């Protein structure tokens, strides 16, 4: 039993350190990819882009709508366009 506990402690130390290292590397690779894309990759053509510019919507509203859609559709939903409804 003491040997098994010792192994469990050792394994826990290895496990938690590995998880930290992997997630740290992921954040690092994410930063590198962002820098790489900013520097070398032109924005891909937006499939949802239309010729007519929509009326300006504040970034706060867009963020709120995006967050709501993500939560409600569990990340499946995509926003194709955001339009202000005309008041009748």
């Amino acid at each position, binding site marked *: 039993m003491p040997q098994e506990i010792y192994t469990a402690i050792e394994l826990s130390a290895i496990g938690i350190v590995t998880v930290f290292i992997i*997630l740290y*590397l992921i954040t690092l690779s*994410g930063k590198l990819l962002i820098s790489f894309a900013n520097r070398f990759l032109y924005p891909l053509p937006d499939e949802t882009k239309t010729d007519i510019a929509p009326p300006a919507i504040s970034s706060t509203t867009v*963020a709120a709508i995006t967050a709501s859609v*993500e*939560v409600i559709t569990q990340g499946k939903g995509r926003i194709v366009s955001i339009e202000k409804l005309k008041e009748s």
Partner: protein
Amino acid sequence: MEVLRALYEMTALDDLIQNPLSLLMLFISCYLLYLGIYKRFEPLLLIPIAFGVLLANIPGGGLGIIPASDTNGIMEMDVLEIAGNFGILNMLYYLLIKTGLLPPLIFLGVGAMTDFGPMLRNLRLALFGAAAQIGIFTVMIAAVATGFTLKEAAALGIIGGADGPTAIYTSIVLAPHMLGPIAIAAYSYMALVPVIIPLVVRFTTTEQELRIHMKQQDTLYPSRVQIQNLKAVKILFPIALCILSGLFVPAALPLIGMLMFGNLIKETGSDTQRLFTAASETIMNTATIFLGLTVGATMTASSFLNFQTLLIIIGGFLAFMLSVAGGILAVKIYNLFAIKKINPLIGATGLSAVPMSSRVANEIALKHDPTNHILQYAMSSNIAGVIGSAVAAGVLIAFLS
């Protein structure tokens, strides 16, 4: 009289009288169905699991999963023989669960439904997804101390990752005889996230900490790098992440690889729309049905009604609580040294349970400050938690299997 006797023998009543514990299991299955249907505790999985329990415990139906042993020689049989000798649920179990196929397929669907956008926008918060895995390892040590073998303790501890498919996958590889109770505990506690997180938060944080306004902190200390081409980064990210985690923890690749593939076909856009739809709907739903039914069918009276199940339920709960507390503690330590403060609720969402943990954390933050919307920030550590628990599972599998 003979006819009546034959009729009685055809029914399961005699078996039920001889094995009254089956009645208790039927009661448990009905209670789980109640939780899934009326209380809406993870209904997509709890209802199939509960129905699997019900099917397995009707005597004479022959739908309960028979554990593989040297005497029944089930591991040497082909699929048709298993179906013929032990019924269709055993066939599905040995074909889909024992081979470890279904959890990675569910990860494929989860990947297709995951958006790495919030994580990419708040990369530093992803590290708290690691701190929240502390419950897994703490409970593993405690479980060994209470008499579980190392493999069993690891399978039990992984409940603290709050990730159902990961818990099931680890259990299949390390302790298949504990699969039923572990699946039930994992999904029940995931459903109880709205109760568990506020409970831990109440005892580990102060009012002042909960008022830390994430957006204000961002305004005061803006990020130095802005993402100019999010679409390209979102496509490159799952590829890089798959290579990275695959190289360091190859044992986690069945889960993380499928997660990243699912995400890649989502982010590629209209060119892979059909694959995305198949992964996020058809495959995900089919896998969920078979996973739930077969895992439920492992819970026969003889395998479920024992002291070990009680320890699994208690251990799983402790693992969950410790994981939430671990994430919060990590944020508190970070805040001691950092100028740009983080709301400790972000640490609490280092559990997987996406997006429920984030939603719960957001609600708590809004209660303390109605303008403090932390959902996008919480999603970062929440998604990192999914990767973190899969990596933790990979480490345990690599060392113990």
